[in-house]
Each structure stands twice: as C-alpha cells, then as structure tokens.
C-alpha cells in the first residue's frame, strides 16, 4: 500500500520528464510539480471554504486557479512541453496575485500568495528566468499602483502595504535566489559527475569491445596456426613440448605427450649437437633461422627450414619459443635438379663452338642482353663482360659496316615477333673479318619479346661453298667438253675408220689376183676389226647421248612397244619369244623403254645356244612399281660375273665368237636407274638367265602443251 502510494507520487512528480530532458531540470520540475500539487490542494480547500462562507468572488478565483493548475498538470503529463506548462502555471499564479491585489481576497490573506512567486520563479527558471519573472511581477504591481492613482482601478491594498509587501518580497527573493544559485551549482557538480560516470562507462564499453576483438583475433590466429601447412610448435624454455599444429603431427608423427615422453623437442634433430644448440637458444630466449635436418618418429629424416622466435610475457621475460618448420626436401630436390641441369646446360654450351645469346626486348623495343654464352670470347676475341653489359657493342661495333643494314633488318623482325636468320660479317678483336650466321627464335610474353639466338662461324662454310661453286662450274665445263668430245668422236674417229674399211675392201677387190688366200683372209680380218671399232664408237656415242638427252615422259603401252621391238629384231626361227600376259601402260620415255627391251631381248637372242630357244617377257605389279621380267633358256651367266656385265665394254664372251660392244646392258642399267628403278639378274650357267627391272608407278607424264609442240603443232 505504502509502496503503491510512493510509486504514484514518484510517477506524479516525474510528470513531463522525457528521457531526453536535460538532467538539470529534473529537480526543478519535481519541485514545481510538488508545489503545484500543494497549491492545487490549498486553492481547492480555500476556494471551497470561501464559497461556503459566502466570499464567492475570492472562492471562485481560488477554485478557478486550482482548476487551471490541474489543467496545467494534465498538459504537462501528456504534452511533455515542460516550459509551456511551467509558463502557463507561473502566469496563472501571477494573474491570481494581481487579482488578489485588486480584490484584496478574504481578510486580505490572499496577498500571501505573492510569497510563492519567487520560489516558483527561481526554482523553476533558474537565476535568470527568476529575475525576469520577478521583474514582470514588480512592474505589474507598480503598474496597478500607478493605475489606482489615476483612478482607473481601485486596489484592495493601500500604497504603504504594497511597498511593505514588495520590500519583504525583495528580501525573500534574495534568499530564494541564493538557494537557487547553490542548488544550481550543486546540480552542475552532479551533472559533471554524471558526465564523468558516463565517460567511464563508455571507456569500459570500448575496452570490452577491444577485448572481444582481441579474442576474435586470437581465435583467428589459432585457426591459422592450426591450419598452417608449416609445422608449428610451442616449446617451453626447459625443453618441454607444449603445443603443435596438425602439420607438425603430419611431419613428425608425434603427439604432444608422445614427444615429451621421447625426450622433448631437442630429440627431433638428426644431429645431437644441433639439438643442444637449439635448446640453448630457446633457454636464452633468442631467435634462430636456418636449414636443419630433422628426424621423424620412424627415424626417417627430412630437410626443413626452421625459424625459432622467443615468446615473452608483458614484463619481457621469456616464457617459451615458437618453432616453425617448413619441409624443404622437395624444394631441395628441385634445387639440386636445377643446379645439375644448369651445370649440364653450361657444359653443353661450352662444348659447342657456336655462340648462344638471349636478348629481351621491352615493350618499347629496347634490347638488353639476358644471356651471352662464354663462347663469344672464342668467336670475337673480346671479353665476355663487354657484351653482357652493352647490347650495342655487338650491333654497332662488331658487325661489319657494310652488313649493319642487314643486321638492323633482323632486329626489326625480332621486334615484330618474327624469327629471323641473317648472315653477316663481324670484325674480330684481331682485326680479322669472319662470316657468321645469326639465327634467332622469338618468344612473346605479355608484350615483352625474348630472342633465343645462335651465332655460328660460317667462314669455313663460305669457303666450302666457294669451292663447291667452282667445282660445279668445272664440272659443267667438263660435261660440255665431253658432249663436244662425243661429237668429235662421231665424226673424226668414224671418218678415218670408214676410210680404212673402204680402202681395205678396194685392196681386196682391185688386187684380187695379186693376193693369195692368206692375204685375202687378213684383209677380211682387217674389215671385221674396223667394223667392231665402229660399233664401239657407236656404243660410246649412244651411252653419252643418254646423259645429254632430255627424256619425254608420256603414256607408253609397253605391250605394244615390246611387240614392235620383237618385230624389229626379227628373231631367227629357232627362237620363240612369248609375251606372257598383257603388259601394262606405263609413264616413261618411249624411246628409252624401247632401248631397254631391245637390248635385253637382243642379248637373249644372241646368247642362246639351244636348238629351241625360249624367251619369255612378263610383268607384275608390286607396291609402288612395275617389275618386268625377261627370261631365256640360253647360255646363262655365272654369279661372279653378275656385276661385271653391267659395266661398260665388259663382255663375257670372246668378241670373235659373239660380236659385242659390251655397252648394251650398261645403257639399260643407266636408263632404269635414271627413273628410280633397279635391275637385277638371276641366272644359272647353261640353263638360262632372267633379267628383272622395275619402273616406278609414280612417274609423271609431261604436260599436254609440250607434247603438242613435239608433234609439230603451235
């Protein structure tokens, strides 16, 4: 019950106090509210008593002011406009006082309301507001006094009473003002304290937030440590293993307690002295970085890169160390591989005589040497360093002035991203000019160009080329001379031969009677030898003509041609020649095909000793070529002579027995091989021979036009 009343009271006196209200008004408003409550009760009480006692005017005024004040409280309670409500209340009190001055009130006690006014003014509005309200009150009363002298109104109090009242009011005001001032100061102190309190609480909040942040960070760090691929461990200064992450476990396969049982972290190092040294460092609180070999639980070893850092507390004393191991065994392997590969590369470079370079062209096209092989010293006689530092040394000083234009073209090509090969001269340190071939391959990357180049000394090649060229010229000349020689042979050797032949014959005829039988035989022998010589010359001519004549490739019906050759040879009756099947149409020089067939068949006829000679001609197709076979049942050839029969002027039989120049098969071989074919011989002495020659299937006929021209067309 008591608490409820207290609550209601508290609620009442706090009327109008929104949360945003300045704390400085808190006490004033509570005070004003309490005062209003007391005033309302008093006014309603006096008003009722005066109404009953018949003093209706004053009673009504009391009730009206009390009602007004209730209204004021209601406004305050619901509108929260503190100043407005306060001003209404204060204004109302002012009007009541002035009204009582005019009316006098019951037994003139109404005047005492005036003594509330300084309290209300100063307490509610502060020092300045209080003075203003007091000013208004004094001016109003003095105004009324002046009005009463002018007989406009009549006052209930006389001038003396008014002065008395105003003087005592002045004294009271001074007192209230003093208290209000004290109160205000007090409030300021409280307010300052409050402010301090608020600041403190803010600081505390900030600290809390920072602590939270630190905690979050710690969490993140611990997660990073846990998930790090590096093995991380925390060791105590006495060598106890305190913590490690997953990567550490994966690397060493130890648990925390397992490692401590094993003897602590110092046991992890393959080299016991290293373990001891590191333990010393940890004890000292020092840091260490380096590569060290560590041992796993299964005694296998791993090369690691280890970083040790001391952990210190806030006071700065060491409380442990953090160990970070990075497995570098793979990297080590790569490094070793790289070193050996680079070593190999250097050896290769050193072993070749060519000079190798690598030039970078920036996106602006400025060249810099990225690599220059040491061979450049051998090539140029200048020290290696001169080239590495200055790209232009080669381009502007070494290259022969006449060849610089060509070299510049090459550089332009490189800049365009094109591979390029140029031959130019360079002037060596000893003043000698040598020819080099500079070939570069271009690689483009992000707008930059790298040229990988080889410079070879081609002076020797150039010399060889010159020799080759002069040899070629000589050969051409020799060939020309040979052709002329053949012509000379045909004329100048044959003419006297024919003369000898004719003269011998005429001798025989004209001196028939003077010659005996022996003389006649000698003349016949002379004629025979002359004829043989003629045949030899003809053979040489035919053979040499082969090399000079330009073949005319066309479609050749080899069946028809072979048949015509046989007709032309008109074989003797005891020789039977058969073409086994239809021979194919081939692309060949017609005359030369005839020559082959004529030589082979005529040989087969000539060297046949059988009563019933048999010659077979056939052809079979193999992959990519035709193979012709000319076989006979004649004398046959011993295998040791197979090679010899294809050589010029080689005959196996006495020329007196078989008249032969020994040139036919040489011509056949030359023709067959000219067209990319082969000729082979299989034979058994006494039983016959078989010649096989091939004709490639991919020979091309000559264009139609040239064929027409040969036929005498346009």
């Amino acid at each position, binding site marked *: 019950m008591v608490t409820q009343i207290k609550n209601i009271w508290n609620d009442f006196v706090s009327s109008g106090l929104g949360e945003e209200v300045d704390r400085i008004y808190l006490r004033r408003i509570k005070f004003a509210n309490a005062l209003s409550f007391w005033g309302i009760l008093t006014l309603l009480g006096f008003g009722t008593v005066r109404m009953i006692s018949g003093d209706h005017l004053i009673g009504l005024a009391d009730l009206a002011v009390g009602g007004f004040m209730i209204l004021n409280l209601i406004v305050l309670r619901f509108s929260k406009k503190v100043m407005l409500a306060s001003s209404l209340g204060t204004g109302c009190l002012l009007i009541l006082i002035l009204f009582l001055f005019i009316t006098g009130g019951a037994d003139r006690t109404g005047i005492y309301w005036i003594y509330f006014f300084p309290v209300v003014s100063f307490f509610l509005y502060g020092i300045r507001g209080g003075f203003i309200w007091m000013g208004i009150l004094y001016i109003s009363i003095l105004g009324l006094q002046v009005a009463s002298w002018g007989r406009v109104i009549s006052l209930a109090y006389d001038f003396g009473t008014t002065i008395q009242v105003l003087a005592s009011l002045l004294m009271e005001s001074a007192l209230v003002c003093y208290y209000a001032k004290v109160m205000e100061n007090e409030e300021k102190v409280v307010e300052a304290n409050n402010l301090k309190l608020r600041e403190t609480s803010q600081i505390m909040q900030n600290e809390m937030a920072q602590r939270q942040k630190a905690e979050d960070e710690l969490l993140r760090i611990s997660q990073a440590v846990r998930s790090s691929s590096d093995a991380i461990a925390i060791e105590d200064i006495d060598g106890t293993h305190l913590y490690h992450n997953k990567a550490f476990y994966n690397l060493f396969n130890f648990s925390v307690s397992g490692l401590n049982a094993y003897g602590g972290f110092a046991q992890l190092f393959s080299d016991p002295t290293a373990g001891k040294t590191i333990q010393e460092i940890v004890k000292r609180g020092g840091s260490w970085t380096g590569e060290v070999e560590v041992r796993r639980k299964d005694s296998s070893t791993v090369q690691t890169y280890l970083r040790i850092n001391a952990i210190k507390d806030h006071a700065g004393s060491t409380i442990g160390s953090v160990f970070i191991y990075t497995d570098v065994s793979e990297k080590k392997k790569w490094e070793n591989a790289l070193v050996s590969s680079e070593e190999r590369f250097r050896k290769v470079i050193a072993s070749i005589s060519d000079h190798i370079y690598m030039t970078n062209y920036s996106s602006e096209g400025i060249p810099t040497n990225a690599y220059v092989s040491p061979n450049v010293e051998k090539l140029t006689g200048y020290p290696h360093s001169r080239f590495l530092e200055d790209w232009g040394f080669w381009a502007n000083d070494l290259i022969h002035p006449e060849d610089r234009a060509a070299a510049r073209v090459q550089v332009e090509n490189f800049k365009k991203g094109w591979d390029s090969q140029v031959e130019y001269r360079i002037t060596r340190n000893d003043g000698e000019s040598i020819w080099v071939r500079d070939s570069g391959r271009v690689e483009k990357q992000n707008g930059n160009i790298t040229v990988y180049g080889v410079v070879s000394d081609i002076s020797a090649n150039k010399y060889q080329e010159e020799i080759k060229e002069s040899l070629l010229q000589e050969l051409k000349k020799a060939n020309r001379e040979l052709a002329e020689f053949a012509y000379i042979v*045909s004329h100048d050797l044959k003419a006297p031969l024919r*003369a000898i*032949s*004719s003269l011998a014959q*005429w001798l025989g005829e004209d001196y028939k009677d003077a010659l005996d039988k022996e003389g006649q035989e000698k003349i016949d022998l002379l004629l025979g030898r*002359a004829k043989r010589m003629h045949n030899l010359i003809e053979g040489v001519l035919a053979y040499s003509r082969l090399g000079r004549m330009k073949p005319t490739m066309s479609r050749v019906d080899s069946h028809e041609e072979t048949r015509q050759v046989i007709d032309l040879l008109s074989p003797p009756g005891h020789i039977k020649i058969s073409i086994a099947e239809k021979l194919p149409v081939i692309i060949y020089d017609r005359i030369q095909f005839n020559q082959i067939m004529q030589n082979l068949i005529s040989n087969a006829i000539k060297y046949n000793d059988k009563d019933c000679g048999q010659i077979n001609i056939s052809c079979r197709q193999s992959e990519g070529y035709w193979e012709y076979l000319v076989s006979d049942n004649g004398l046959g050839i011993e295998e040791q002579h197979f090679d010899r029969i294809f050589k010029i002027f080689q005959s196996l039989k006495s020329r007196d027995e078989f008249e032969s120049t020994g040139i036919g098969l040489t011509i056949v071989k030359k023709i067959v091989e000219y067209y990319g074919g082969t000729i082979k011989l299989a034979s058994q002495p006494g039983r016959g021979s078989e010649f096989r020659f091939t004709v490639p299937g991919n020979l091309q006929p000559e264009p139609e036009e040239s064929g027409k021209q040969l036929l005498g067309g346009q």
Partner: protein
Amino acid sequence: MRDNIPVLLVDDDQVDIMTVQRAFKVNNISNPLNIVGNGREALDYLKQDGKYKNPKISPRPGIILLDLNMPIMNGIEFLKIAKANKELKKIPMIVLTTSKEENDRVESFNLSVAGYIIKPVEFEKFVEAVRVLNLYWTLSELP
C-alpha cells in the same frame, strides 16, 4: 642421173671422194663429177670465181652432194649462204655425211636440203645408196 647433168661433190676427205667416184663407176653413172674441198671453194665454184672461171671445166651443177664436216667453211655454213642466194637455192643439195647428230639433221632440213644420207660404213651399202640416189634423180624433174 637425168640428162648427164653435172654433179658437184663438196668433200675434203680423199677416201670419201674415192668412195663416191667408185660408187658412181660401179653404178655406171656417167654424169660429170666435179669436186671441191670445202664450202668456201664450193661458193667460188658456183659463182665461177677465180680458177672456176671456165664453164667448160667447171660447169654449173644440177645437183650438189655436200659433206658437213669440212675445214674453212663447213656444210651448214655453206647451206646458210647458198640457200639465201636466189639463184643457188634452186639447186638440189643432198647432205652426205657421217654425222648422226640430231642438230645437224634438223638444221640441214631447216635449210631446205633435198636429202640427208648418212654414209654407211660398208662400201656395198654406199654403192646401194648411190644407186638409189641415181634412180631418184633420174626419175625426178630438176628445176
């Protein structure tokens, strides 16, 4: 040959000349055979210059037998000059040579020769060749 017209043999080889003379004899060819040693002499003969002034000793030939390979002026050179001459080009000229060279044959025919005979090695065959030659030029009209 027709009407015993004179024949001019242009050849430098003594045996070749003998061969022709002998073949004429064997074939009973009675046409007068005049002989000059090379193209230059042949041109002089035909123009009746110098020692060939007497038309009785050096009559204008109806047929010329021409060797190709000769000193001073060879057969081809002679043909080029003779065939460019309005008068001389009418005379039938028959090449009688040992050359089997394609070039010689083609060039000779380009220069409008009346025939191209390769001298056979055997005398019998040469006799036969001259016989056929005689027959042909007995049959054929002359300009």
